[in-house]
């Protein structure tokens, strides 16, 4: 392309600078949003595994009945296939933050803080190692507790008495999920501190880290089984071998789903923003039709014309990419840091990978170019005659005159609105683009709110939360009838029944039992519930049958466990329970509840007692309070704790419906916040698009406005014609936003629901959100039309009629 042709490109852009600036801003906004998400993904994809692996996670954990003897420990350490071997313990208790509020506490007992070489934690503040009688906490726990170094909290373990511990230091543990998400506290103590708490727990965990192939699950399992067999031969058979997914953060799947959703939306934003530029180029082509004809008449080939006008798209896209790059890199660092905090991940390197910002820049240039190619090609192929015949004024509809009813409707609404409506329909492609952009922005915004509403409904309707108000786990099994009697006597309790909750794992005959439990002892665990056959909280049967009185070998599974264990109705299932190998017959598939999937296995209390020799005893209770809600839950909790303390019955943990709800909501909060933010960005992009499109339309019809004014239209009427046009486009987009939002909400609910709730979220369309978006659309559309309308009304008739 020659020098003069390039000058035409720059000067034409300068003449349309108002519209060009609007579109560059809109495009840059979309690019920045998309680039931020893509860059954040690049950072997290690199840093999450790195951060997790930097903590030297255990490849496998052997659970023993007692602490491993020092001489055996030395011999295991000497194995060439192991890089590190350490003894640890994980003890569960409760930490009292307020008289009526106790949080679950996971205490990691570390034999030698200075020599940690597996599942390490990084010292951040305060003492290191913790003096005996104090504890270190993970930094997310410190934030969750809203406290500071030196604060003291009563801590109780399985035994009844609680003792105060001071927080002497803060560590960073990238191997656990953040405290606020789990609604639990992580503490790190010495064995002496554990003893001082009155616990008889031993260092019964042996942490292994393989020397090679640390990400090969098969290799790890083989090494762990070999060590297990070696120990068993020396009279120390492990009760359980835990092999979590290697190199995988406990919340990896949730983060992956979230990033995937955001990546898809950001790709959508990029595509739509490219369409923005195509809008301007289309308008430019329409306006320049006669110029194109003149150029072709003086020798320009179709390829030259195409190159000339495609350059507009490249220039606009390049300008937007330049504007967007800085904010997207800045945004990515902030967003990655936020995600890191939310995931308890340490970002060793927050630099955005080169491919992320290069991809953003390339997308900024290529996407508008590709979107603009169809109208550019069409214009370049128009004959000279066609192009020169373009008068720059609307010629009027082709074909039949409006019907009688159409004419009546037109007479009813008046010529101004009729004019606006016909202009809206005049450029159907541009109308489609504006509607699509506005609708997409609205759809994403509505989806964010709908996901929140769906969460509320899911929680309100049950199936996500337990039907009981409290679940207790006792320090030691207690005689069932006495326990029930004691609780029934409490004024705030309406109903109580026994339950046992235990971690189990599958076993194969002749093989050591292997589970996939994470460091925190929760993620990846198989959880078994033993309930009375007439339990009020029995799960819903999906296939097969329910547990019945007399069932002592029957088991029912949640669908995800059926898949995980490869089980089927009628087949036998071997499980390690309470240190024993047991066999059960699968009789049904039932709907489970709980966070992290459709989880759970169910047996009868009689079956459990038989398998564990604990007949007549229970180690857990489920309670319905007389008054539902937080107040009733609190009252019942207080009464039970007081009664049990008086009776010397230790409580290992109490969880209530409000705690479960907090955990679930915290998991959904990230998704919801991200969607609402993205929706606002896309909505702004849509509004800018409409402003640009309306401005383009005004410029195209300048002579027409001159004619209108010559015929007597006041400036106010000219303004109303333009604003009405923008308003009509906005109103047309609203039902599309609602429909697209419904589809997106269903999709997001199907993606996020199973991860958080075990089942898809219900489709909930928030009516207030729809109404709010209608209001936003009306306001944004009027605003979008206001400036070009004002410009149109200020033109003199002479200027307008002389416009070419």
């Amino acid at each position, binding site marked *: 392309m020659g020098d003069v042709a390039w000058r*035409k490109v720059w000067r034409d852009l300068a003449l349309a600078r108002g519209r060009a600036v609007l579109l560059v801003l809109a495009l840059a906004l979309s690019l920045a949003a998309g680039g931020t998400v893509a860059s954040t993904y690049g950072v997290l994809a690199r840093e999450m595994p790195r951060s997790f692996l930097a903590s030297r996670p255990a490849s496998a954990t052997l659970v023993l009945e007692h602490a491993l003897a020092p001489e055996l420990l030395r011999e295991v350490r000497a194995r060439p296939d192991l890089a590190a071997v350490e003894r640890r313990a994980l003890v569960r208790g409760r930490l009292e933050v307020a008289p009526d509020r106790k949080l679950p506490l996971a205490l990691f007992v570390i034999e030698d803080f200075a020599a940690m070489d597996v599942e390490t934690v990084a010292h951040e503040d305060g003492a290191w190692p913790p003096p005996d009688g104090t504890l270190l906490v993970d930094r997310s726990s410190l934030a969750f507790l809203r406290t500071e170094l030196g604060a003291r909290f009563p801590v109780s373990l399985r035994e009844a008495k609680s003792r105060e511990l001071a927080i002497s230091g803060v560590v960073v543990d990238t191997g656990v999920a953040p405290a606020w998400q789990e609604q639990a506290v992580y503490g790190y103590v010495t064995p002496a501190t554990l003893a001082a708490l009155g616990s008889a727990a031993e260092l019964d965990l042996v942490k292994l880290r393989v020397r090679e192939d640390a990400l090969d699950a098969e290799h790890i399992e083989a090494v762990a089984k070999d060590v297990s067999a070696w120990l068993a031969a020396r009279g120390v058979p492990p009760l359980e071998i835990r092999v979590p997914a290697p190199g995988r953060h406990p919340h990896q799947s949730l983060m992956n789903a979230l990033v995937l959703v955001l990546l898809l939306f950001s790709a959508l934003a990029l595509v739509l923003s490219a369409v923005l530029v195509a809008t301007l180029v289309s308008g430019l082509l329409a306006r320049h039709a006669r110029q194109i004809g003149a150029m072709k008449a003086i*020798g320009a080939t179709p390829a030259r014309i195409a190159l000339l006008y495609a350059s507009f798209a490249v220039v606009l896209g390049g300008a937007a990419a330049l504007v967007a790059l800085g904010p997207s890199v800045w945004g990515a660092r902030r967003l990655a840091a936020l995600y890191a905090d939310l995931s308890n991940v340490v970002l060793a390197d927050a630099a955005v990978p080169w491919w992320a910002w290069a991809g953003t820049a390339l997308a900024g240039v290529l996407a508008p170019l590709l979107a603009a190619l169809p109208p550019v090609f069409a214009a370049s*192929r128009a004959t000279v005659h066609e192009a020169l015949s373009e008068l720059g004024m609307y010629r009027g509809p082709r074909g039949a005159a409006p019907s009688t009813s159409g004419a009546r409707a037109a007479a009813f609404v008046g010529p101004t609105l009729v004019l606006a409506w016909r202009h809206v329909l005049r450029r159907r492609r541009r109308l489609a683009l504006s509607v699509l952009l506005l609708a997409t922005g609205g759809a994403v915004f509505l989806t964010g709110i709908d996901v929140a509403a769906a969460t509320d409904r899911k929680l309100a309707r049950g199936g996500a939360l337990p039907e009981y108000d409290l679940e207790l786990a006792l320090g030691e099994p207690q005689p069932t009838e006495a326990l029930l009697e004691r609780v029934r006597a409490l004024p705030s309790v309406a109903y109580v029944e026994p339950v046992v909750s235990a971690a189990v794992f599958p076993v194969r005959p002749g093989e050591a039992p292997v589970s996939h439990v994470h460091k925190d002892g929760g993620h990846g665990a198989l959880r078994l519930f033993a309930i009375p056959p007439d339990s009020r909280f029995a799960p819903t049967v999906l296939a097969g049958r329910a547990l019945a009185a007399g069932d002592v070998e029957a088991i029912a599974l949640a669908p995800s466990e059926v898949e995980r264990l490869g089980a089927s109705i009628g087949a036998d299932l071997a499980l390690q329970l309470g240190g024993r190998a047991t066999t059960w017959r699968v009789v049904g598939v039932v709907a489970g509840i709980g966070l992290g999937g459709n989880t759970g296995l169910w047996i009868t209390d009689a079956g459990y007692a038989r398998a564990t020799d604990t007949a007549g005893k229970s180690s857990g209770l489920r309670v319905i309070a007389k008054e539902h809600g937080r107040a009733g839950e609190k009252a019942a909790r207080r009464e039970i704790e007081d009664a049990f303390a008086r009776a010397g019955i230790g409580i290992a943990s109490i969880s209530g419906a409000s705690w479960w709800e907090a955990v679930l909501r915290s998991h959904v909060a990230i998704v919801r916040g991200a969607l609402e933010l993205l929706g606002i960005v896309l909505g702004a992009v849509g509004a800018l698009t409409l402003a640009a499109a309306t401005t383009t339309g005004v410029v195209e019809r300048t002579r027409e406005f001159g004619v209108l004014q010559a015929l007597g239209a006041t400036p106010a009427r000219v303004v109303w014609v333009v604003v009405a046009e923008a308003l009509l486009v906005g109103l047309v987009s609203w039902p599309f936003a609602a429909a697209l939002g419904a589809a997106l909400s269903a999709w997001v609910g199907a993606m996020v629901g199973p991860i958080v709730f075990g089942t898809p979220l219900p489709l909930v369309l928030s009516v207030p959100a729809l109404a709010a978006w209608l209001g936003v659309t009306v306001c944004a559309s009027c605003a979008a039309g206001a400036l070009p309308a004002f410009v149109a009304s200020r033109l003199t008739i002479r200027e307008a009629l002389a416009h070419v």
Partner: protein
Amino acid sequence: MPTHTVRSEPNAAEPHIRLRGVTKRYDTGRGPFDALRDVDLDVRARALTAIVGRSGSGKSTLANLVTGIDRPTKGEVVALGRRVDTLGQRDLALWRGRNVGVVFQFFQLLPALTIVENVVLPMEFAGRVPVRERRPRALALLERVGIGAQAQKLPSALSGGEQQRAAIARALANDPPIVVADEPTGNLDSHNSGAVLELFAALAADGRTVLVVTHERDVSRFADDVVTLVDGLVSEVRTLRAEAANRG
């Protein structure tokens, strides 16, 4: 159908433009309309031919067919030995840029370019004039048409007559052997009209084939040949130069 072929003078050159059996039909809301009907016409080389007739007689259609801006429904259009009506868009654009200078009634100057840049633009498209020579050549052409002082101005700063002169300079940018002008004086006053038509006459005298569609009444002052169209048919072809020579 009456057809007329201009009887050439002894030793006159082959016609630069030849139409044979040319019909142009448009589909309108009221049915098909033949703007030109089975026209045979030879346009003499190195002469100024005026195409005259009432509105709707087919004058502009004929000019569009000669330049390739439009294509005939039937028939052949041959210019400088090439079948213009069968060229593809790309070849047509290149051929036109190098061989035909087009002047429009409404000037059609590009508003974002200065006058001199408007004249340089066809040179860029044709690629024949070396880059360094383009601007000097453009300035020379503008001087020739009498508006050298307006070279750096945008079209909107020029009067109608000046814009039309600029359009003529642009039409000459690649030194085309054929110049076609469609109502070049349609938007000009009488003074400017005369000046523009004199320019065209000078171009013909220089050896170019000039075809001018015009409403001007007194074409005899500048045209060598006059073709009269009536309702899409060639009703008369007069060779004025021969008549003038006879009178002299």
